[in-house]
């Protein structure tokens, strides 16, 4: 029994006077307890919208959500606002992209942690403070007792992200969604935060959905990877399979465009040509066709289905031939 089962999730943004925009289309995946699942794609591929839809954080007006999201036998999409509020933070945690703006600047860090503990775990202010200090200690902040009375602006980006992780994990959620948690941080801090995250989720057996555009993060963290393009999943595979034999030309292109340590000297990087704005509609054919080196006539006329292929799910008419591999260790 999967912890989270997303089936045919679709998000359409509708606004008077403009064409409806399909941000997420027929996305299905599931997360087992304790598993780490990656959601990869470039800007505009629908990965963040997917996560907001899971949490019920999309605006009521303007965003039309379809499909189903089952979390431990509960259908999340039909929950009332109040029921959803009771679950958020307790069963489902979320860490956002920008630690600099995700903390309330005018109240102390302690209050921002204890607020969640009081809300979901019914602790008194005193108990919550003790627990909060412990949480800060666990995410590796020195002198946690003092941090409680400090304000966010007294801390660096990395420290704030640690605080946010502490808050998200405060009620020991069963599922944590991390939406590009390291994008706003510099590289050394990124590595620290990632190892912290993976340590914590394995310690507490929390399932993690890691949303990122960085395949390097996925390589180090995720059991299963979903690659999204234009609002649909185009390839899903276990980590090793994906990196050793990426089949979708988009995934392949992403891997080709990353500098590798074991590449021959002077070998140029191969970028994916064009940009997301070149996409065609999925109804017309494959959205990636205009940018795809393998595209043939069928790609322009017939939308590919997500099919099982070679131990993975693949949405492509002309997948990359086997044996053209990039090793994950090199990333």
């Amino acid at each position, binding site marked *: 029994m999967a912890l989270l089962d997303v089936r045919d999730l679709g998000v359409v943004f509708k606004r008077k006077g403009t064409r409806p925009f399909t941000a997420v289309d027929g996305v299905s995946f599931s997360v087992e307890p304790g598993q780490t699942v990656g959601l990869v794609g470039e800007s505009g591929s629908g990965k963040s919208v997917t996560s907001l839809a899971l949490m019920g954080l999309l605006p009521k007006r303007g965003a039309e959500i379809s499909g189903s999201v089952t979390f431990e036998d509960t259908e999340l999409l039909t929950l009332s606002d109040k029921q959803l509020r009771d679950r958020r933070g307790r069963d489902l945690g979320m860490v956002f992209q920008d630690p600099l703006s995700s903390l309330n600047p005018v109240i102390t860090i302690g209050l921002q942690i204890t607020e969640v503990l009081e809300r979901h775990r019914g602790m008194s202010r005193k108990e919550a403070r003790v627990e909060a200090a412990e949480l800060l200690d666990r995410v590796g902040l020195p002198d946690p007792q003092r941090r409680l009375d400090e304000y966010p602006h007294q801390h660096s980006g990395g420290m704030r992200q640690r605080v946010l992780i502490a*808050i998200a994990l405060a009620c020991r959620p069963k599922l944590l969604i991390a939406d590009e948690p390291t994008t706003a941080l510099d590289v050394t801090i990124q590595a620290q935060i990632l190892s912290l995250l993976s340590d914590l989720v394995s310690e507490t057996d929390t399932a993690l959905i890691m949303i990122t555009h960085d395949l390097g993060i996925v390589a180090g963290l995720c059991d299963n990877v979903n690659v999204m393009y234009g609002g649909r999943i185009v390839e899903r595979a276990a980590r090793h399979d994906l990196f050793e034999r990426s089949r979708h030309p988009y995934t392949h292109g992403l891997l080709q465009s990353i500098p590798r340590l074991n590449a021959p000297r002077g070998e140029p990087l191969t970028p994916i040509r064009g940009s997301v704005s070149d996409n065609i509609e999925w109804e017309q054919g494959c959205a990636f066709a205009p940018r795809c080196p393998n595209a043939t006539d069928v790609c322009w006329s017939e939308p590919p289905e997500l099919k099982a292929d070679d131990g993975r799910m693949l949405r492509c008419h002309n997948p990359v031939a086997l044996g053209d591999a990039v090793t994950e260790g090199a990333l």
Partner: protein
Amino acid sequence: MSILSTRKAEKIDSLAEGGTSLAMDALRRTFRSPVAILGLVIVGLFVILAIISPFIAPKDPYRPYPELKAELTPSNIPGPMPGFLLGSDQNGYDFFSRLLVGAQQTLFVGVFATLIGVAIGMIIGGLAGAFGGWVDSVLMRLTDIMLSVPSLLLAISIAALLPGSQWTVIIAVAMIGVPVFARLLRGAMIAQRSSDHVLAATALGVKRKTIVFRHMLPNSIGPVIVQATLTLATAIIDAAALSFLGLGDSDWRRAEWGLMLGNAQELLSVKPSLAFFPAIAIIVVALGFTLLGESMRESLDPKNRR
């Protein structure tokens, strides 16, 4: 814990020495500028004067003095004489004492008009910002209507409807500020609603009430405080204008600068100082509040942050 992050933490500690909140930080930045200090000095002196004026006034401001009355004719108002620094006013009262005590009345009117304006404006703006939707639409159209009437005209019509008293002036002047504060708070709240930390709090299942009062309101209140300081200046001027137009206190004896100015208008040729001193006092005090408010606004503006 790696060595790197420990070092970093130490560095941060040294930076955060004497840890200050954002508000303290803004205050410190405010009072680095000489303009702000000048504003603060004027406002400070005015407030002190308002508090101690009844005790330091050399004469009773609410009683005519026979030695002044003796020389008082329609074409001659006595000037300075021993014991009466600025001489008499048109009723044989000690003008200097009345001028001093006037600070109290003026401050009283200004502060209460502003406070009432802020309170009502914040309730309207807070409701609109917190609920959005049709609540927002209805309340904002109401404030639009209030804003569409020129401010002094609005105050005059309200003052004309109510019986002439000091509270009439206060309420009328307060109403000028209401739509301004309502819009300001509503705008700031709406900006907060889509901010990352409110989204983060929502994602943690924090209750709506807590989100509004702990996460949105405190972050939106800065511009309101600044505007309140600026409004104090205009409130004092508007109150003076109402009194000047005779829509204020029906008790002509009250020592209030606007009222004194209004009562002095027919006597400009006889004793111009009767109008001059209250007018100067109003201008200086309004200037003080404006300087203070403007520099607060500047230092709270993130664009000016150094």
